[in-house]
Structure formats: structure tokens, C-alpha cells
């Protein structure tokens, strides 16, 4: 026996240093441009709702893990990120208790009930969003209108649903949609800010390019086909890309790790499918915000898409 001890562990003996908390920090940082734009555009009240959402998500998760006697996993920062993300897809000025209900459902129903982050089959943020949408449809459609002389009191997607694509162009230019000068959810309105965040995520390699790119391609080409076929009856594919939460879905909601596929082929199909379903729901469905529902529905396909494993070497 030697005088000192050596450590013996299985390989590998090095690690990349990547961690879930690093990834969640990246996701949170990537949401900051959209958050700041929300505060600037909709007013300081947004700070209040973001704080309520983030703090309550952390409290609910801590409480749940403490009560069920599990290890506290708050250090992975998922509670912080998902709280912020939920706040950004709620209308600005939503009553404080609605946000509390939302984060409670997000943490308990969306995540903890399945055994914590990683085991949830659905995107927990979308679970909460849908629950709020179904429970409080009136609150969820009350927009703050920061522009002095608004042309309409509805969000672009609502105008599209109720009045048709021709009216949308009358009320909102593409520049408005791109920069975010429209009524809508706190962090969803500005495609530009979300693209900046998405670019950051891709640059940091936190997310894979496959899901966002195939999702955006699915939306663009499926909408494009109908736009070319029926003149005037269908909306411009660029409108579909810029409005109604397409961008936030592409980079932040569809890329949710546990509820999206893991294989390269699965990711592409997931993105394309969710993109096509987004346009389908918007054009022919009853729900206004098709993008969120489409992603949530495609979460259900994830286990099947994961069956499309890559061809193993030599087989």
C-alpha cells in the first residue's frame, strides 16, 4: 500500500465543462433582448410581471422538491428561465394572481408531476400557457396599447383570424411586425429581438440549428404554397414568420430539451411538422395562436420521432 491514495474512476477522465445551468443561463440571456424590448414598449409594469413569474416559479419548484423530499434542483436555473419565458408569452398587464396560477401549473403539472425537469413529456411553459388560455380567455386577450393612435386594438394574428389577410396589411406593415410595434404578448411581439436571442443560442451551440431552421422552413414553405395558389385568400408567408409567436416558438419553445426529439432526423421532422401545423391551425383552425398549440401537439410525437434512430455504424 502506498503512502497516498490514487483516484480510480471509469473513463472518461475529462469533461467539456458544459452543464445544464450553463445552458439555462444561455437561454435566459438570449431572452433578455426581448424582455428589454417588452419593458421599453409596454412600460415598467412588465418588470413587475416578469419578477412575479420568475420568483414564483423558483418558489413553487423549491417548495415542490422540498415537500416531496427530493434533491433541490434549483441550481440548474430552469425555474428562472421557464418563469421568464412564461412571462414573455403572457399579455402585458395580466393580473398578478393569474401569473401565480400560471407558474404553479407550469412547475407542478408541467414538470414536477413527471419527476422533475428532463422527464416531462410536454413543454412545461406551454402547458401553463394553454391552461391560462383556456381558463382566462378574456384576460389573455387584453392588450396594452402603447401606440398613441392605434389602428386596431387587436393583435395581428387576431386581425388575421377575424378579418382575413387583407386587413392585416392595412394595419401592420412588415416593419412593424419585424420590430414589434404591435399589440401582443410581452416578449413575443418583436421578431428582431427574438432573432438576436436565437442567434446567440446558435452561436453558443446551446441549441441545435435543426429545430429552429426546419420549423421556420415548415412555416414559410407551407404558407408560401397556399399564398402562391390562392391570391389574396391566404396570408403572406413572411407574415406567418413574423407574427403570432413564430420566432419565440422556433428558438425558445420548440427547442425545449425534454419535449423535443434527440435524433437529427427526428429534429427535422419535428420542426417541419410543427411548422406546417402552425400554419394549418392559423389558417383553418379555431385557435388564434396556432404556433403554441402546434408545438405542444408535436411534443406528443417526440417519442415516436425518437424511434427514427440514425443508422448505426456498419449496419
Amino acid at each position, binding site marked *: 500500500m502506498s503512502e497516498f491514495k490514487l483516484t480510480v474512476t*471509469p473513463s472518461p*477522465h475529462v469533461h467539456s465543462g458544459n452543464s445544464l445551468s450553463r445552458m439555462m443561463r444561455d437561454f435566459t440571456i438570449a431572452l433578455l433582448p426581448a424582455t428589454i424590448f417588452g419593458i421599453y414598449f409596454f412600460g415598467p409594469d412588465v418588470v413587475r410581471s416578469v419578477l412575479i413569474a420568475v420568483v414564483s416559479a423558483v418558489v413553487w419548484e423549491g417548495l415542490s422538491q422540498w415537500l416531496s423530499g427530493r434533491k433541490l434542483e434549483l441550481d440548474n436555473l430552469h425555474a428562472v428561465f421557464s418563469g421568464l419565458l412564461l412571462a414573455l408569452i403572457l399579455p402585458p398587464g395580466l393580473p398578478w394572481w393569474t401569473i401565480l396560477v400560471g407558474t404553479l401549473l407550469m412547475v407542478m403539472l408541467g414538470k414536477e408531476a413527471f419527476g422533475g425537469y428532463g422527464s416531462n413529456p410536454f413543454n412545461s411553459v406551454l402547458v401553463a400557457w394553454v391552461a391560462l388560455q383556456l381558463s382566462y380567455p378574456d384576460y389573455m386577450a387584453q392588450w396594452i396599447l402603447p401606440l398613441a393612435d392605434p389602428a386596431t386594438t387587436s393583435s395581428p394574428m387576431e386581425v388575421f383570424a377575424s378579418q382575413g389577410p387583407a386587413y392585416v396589411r392595412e394595419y401592420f406593415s412588415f416593419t412593424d411586425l419585424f420590430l414589434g410595434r404591435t399589440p401582443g404578448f410581452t416578449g413575443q411581439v418583436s421578431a428582431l429581438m427574438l432573432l438576436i436571442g436565437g442567434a446567440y443560442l446558435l452561436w453558443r451551440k446551446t441549441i441545435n440549428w435543426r429545430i429552429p431552421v426546419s420549423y421556420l422552413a415548415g412555416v414559410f414553405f407551407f404558407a408560401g404554397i397556399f399564398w402562391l395558389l390562392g391570391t389574396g385568400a391566404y396570408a403572406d408567408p413572411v407574415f406567418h414568420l413574423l407574427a403570432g409567436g413564430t420566432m419565440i416558438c422556433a428558438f425558445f419553445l420548440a427547442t425545449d430539451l425534454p419535449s423535443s426529439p434527440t435524433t437529427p432526423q427526428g429534429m427535422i421532422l419535428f420542426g417541419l411538422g410543427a411548422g406546417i401545423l402552425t400554419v394549418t391551425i392559423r389558417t383553418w383552425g379555431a385557435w388564434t395562436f396556432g404556433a403554441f398549440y402546434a408545438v405542444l401537439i408535436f411534443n406528443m410525437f417526440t417519442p415516436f420521432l*425518437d424511434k427514427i434512430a*440514425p443508422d448505426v455504424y456498419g449496419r
Partner: protein
Amino acid sequence: MKQHKGASCRPLFKKDQPVQRGQVVGQSSETSILSPVDGHVSEVNKNFRHFDGTLTTGLTITPSEESEQEQQPAAEGPVMDKILYRGVLDSGAAQPLMRKLVKAQEKGVRTLIISSLDEFFIFGSRAALLAHHTQEALEGIQLLQRILRPEVTYLAVYEECFPLIRESAAIPESIRLVPLQAKHPQHKDPLLVSAITGQEYPLESSPLELGIASLSLETASTLASVIQNEEANTAKALTVLGPDPNQQHNVWVPLGAPIRHVLEHMGGNTEEVAKVIVGGPLSGTALSSLDYPVTKEMDQIHFHRAQDQITYSSEICVKCGYCVEVCPMRLMPFLLSGYSSTGYIDMAAENDIFSCIECGCCAYVCPVHIPLVQWIQVGKSRLSTNLRSEAL
């Protein structure tokens, strides 16, 4: 008595018997072990723990003070006998070279791949052999060409070393130099074969089925020194890193020397060392003692300090897909590990767990630090045990 994959060698010496450098001290049907020094057998340990976990016999040879005249090694005659009696291994796979060559001759070899790639190091021991002992290395390759009669011979080098090798050596026409990207685990056979020839083979078979023989450059080099220069095969080219992570050395070490001596020779402080890894940092084995001897299986030794160590803690898999993305064998490591850890080993077998080469890429990138390779090893060993008991 076991420095290779396969059955242990039988010790030919008893306690207190004198041995001479270059004498065969252990013998099996496929390979031999030669004494690295003059001296006497001071201890025979029947329960020596090999680092793969199995038991073998260990001989301790205490070198004598006065060095005697080196005896000419006994083996004369055909090349294969020399390969057998001087214990030449293929250093990449630690397989007895004779076994490999005999199989290769049976199957017929169209393509010969000689690899100078090391895990982790761009300029490791093999690249160093090629750069500094070029003549010997090339002679060895030509010997192998004469034995195997391939149509084409490729010499794989890392891109970074490519200009150096091309300028320094007059590579014969018959050897094609292939620059490869320094990307782990490029040095492993399946990936070498697919990178150079574009062909793939199921892992339970071998590249020989495709008419491809893949050997390490060090093998060629050893072969030349043993056959042409009549030297005893008693030293090993090693790359040593650490304990200071900026200290990399390519050295010749006599076989059987305790790793402690290697460390001391490098000027490393034993107190600093917290972990000793044989093989690369991604797929190597950690040793339990600094007194373990240097064997033919070792290509590189890493000394890690306490602050270099990392821990793998099993958390819930978040299905991020990073492991699927990086797996060079295009497996789904998180699934294999999950099946293995929950006992569904049949499912693991269905998902080609035996195609895993344990390169360590999946665990390296895992954001929740799951010890994926360890779980896959557990699954493989459980499956093998099941298969064995079914066969009985």
C-alpha cells in the same frame, strides 16, 4: 504475464532464477514476454491484478548491478517465429501481432492502413516515432507490405503533422500519406477505416472482412527493430503528460519499469498526482497504484492533479440530444445508458450496445454529467454474462 488481449503467458522462470535481458520469460501460443533487464526473479505473484480487473501472474525481476553481455535472442528462422518469440504486439489494439497477421493472410489484404494517430495528442509517441525514427518506421511498413501483400498502403497522419512528415521523410511511392483531422476518436479502427476507405463494417466482425488490415505505426517500427536490427522487444514508446498539464514528453520506457519511476524520471512530484490514467483521458483506465509496471498495452500515461479531477454525478437525462449528435458510431448513448441503468438490457442489445467503442464523447458533452460510458459498460458486461450462461 499479460500485456495483451488474449490468454496470459505461462511464466518460464521460478523464484530466484537468473534471467538475462532479451530472454523469453513468459510464453503463450500467440506471443511472448521478454525480460527487459539482466537480473534475477525476486518474486512470483500468482495473483497479480491486471488493470482490466483479471488476475494473472506477475514476475518481479530485480536487475543485477553488473550488466552482462547481452545474449543474442534465441529465435532464428522465419519472420513469424520472430514475431512470436519476441512478443510483438499490434500496439493500437494490444493484440498479438502474430494472431492478427495470420488472420490477415487467411482473409487476404487489399488495403493496409498504418496509423500514426494517438488519442488526445497531435504529436504523440507514434507521430514522434515517424518523425524521429523515420527510417525504421518505413522499413517496418515495407516489411508488413511484404508479409501482407496489399494493393494499397495508407499511412494516416494528423493534418498538423502532415507537412513535417512529408518534408522530413522520403516516403516510398507505395505508401500513400493521408492527412486526417485531429478529432477524437479518429485514431480508433472503425473511424480510421471509414475516413480512409469510406467503408464501414459491423463492429462484431473486423475490417479484415473488407480486406483491410489496420495496424499501428509503432507496430511497424517495433517489427523493423526486432527483425532487421535483431533487437529485443523490451521497451515501449510512451507519451507522458503531467502532473503539470503543459508537460508532454515522448519517451522510451523499459517494459516492467514501475510507473513511479517514469514519473520521477520526468521530474514529476508524486505528491501532486491524484490520478494515473493509462490510455487517453477520454477512454483510458485509471490505475490504483504508482507501482504498476509499464506494459506493452500502454501508449500514454496521464498524471492528473487533484484540481484536474472531475466527477460524474448521475442526474436526470434532459434528452438534449448532444450525445446522439457527437456519437461517432451513430448510436443513441442516452438510450443505451438508460436501458442499462434501469435493467432493460435486452433493449440495450437491440439498440446495438455492442457497437459502442467507449470513446467517451457522449459523457464528455453531457450537460447533466451522466456517466454514460460506465452505464454502457455495465450493460455490455451484464449482456455478456447472460449470453455465457445461456450457452452453458
